[in-house]
């Protein structure tokens, strides 16, 4: 077993211990459709892409738990409701798949509020293969 798996299991141990406390459980109130509370023990440099994948698979709120100096930090991630208008709200923030979890937690701490974000697709270049001049009738 590699070091990262060992560290992840150590976070899982802290999560399972914390779940004995009512105050911790009450912070993790949301469930997925099957009624389960989903928690993902994470490492600070885990890429956000994996969490987007888990969120899609769960189709409901997931909680990401990361160990910091003062104990566990828990981040909730929920599918955002589609905007009521065609124009997205100004606080929508692109997050690339390789963005590290600790960067998002640092940002949330600095802004002290929830963040509506979306998974940014990698840049794509489009080009006509056969670049003939246009034909006019």
């Amino acid at each position, binding site marked *: *077993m590699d070091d*990262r*798996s060992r560290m*992840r*299991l*150590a976070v*899982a*141990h802290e*999560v*399972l*211990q914390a*779940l*004995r406390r*009512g105050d911790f*459980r009450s912070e993790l109130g949301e*469930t*997925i459709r*099957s*009624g*389960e*509370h*989903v*928690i*993902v*023990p*994470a490492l600070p440099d*885990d890429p956000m892409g*994996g969490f987007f994948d*888990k969120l899609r698979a769960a189709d409901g709120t*997931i909680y990401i738990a990361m160990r910091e100096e003062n104990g566990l930090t828990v981040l909730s991630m929920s599918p955002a409701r589609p905007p009521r208008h065609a124009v997205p709200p100004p606080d929508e923030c692109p997050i690339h798949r390789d963005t590290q979890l600790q960067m998002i937690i640092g940002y949330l701490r600095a802004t002290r509020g929830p963040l509506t974000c979306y998974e940014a697709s990698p840049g794509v270049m489009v080009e006509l293969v056969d670049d003939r001049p246009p034909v006019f009738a």
Partner: protein
Amino acid sequence: MSLAEQDNDARWSPDPDSVDDWPVLVLLDGLGRIKGRQGLDKETGRLAEFALVAQVEYQGLWHDVALVDTCHEEVHLHLYAKDGREIKDGRTVLLPVRNMSDVGRGYDTAEKLLIVEWEAHVRRWERGR
């Protein structure tokens, strides 16, 4: 046997109507997952029963590898093989449940057993013994 000894040995389990369920799924990237259920006393919120099962994904399905629960007024461990059968002598009683505190102690033992022995449990599941 004296009455006191009998009382000390009396097993305990909660009234099913007095327990609220708190199901949980702990996703372990690259390892598997722990599927759990806490039965919490409706009045006090204390842990009255539980089940924790370590699972791995194989051929697109989740398979039980090791399970610790409080059935039959005992905290016990079950170990499973890849073909789904319970491994012979794989059932180990960790402690008898005589009160709610024993359930809490059993939970602490259970989660450590699943986490610390994860690799060994998965190897045993693959070998089938």
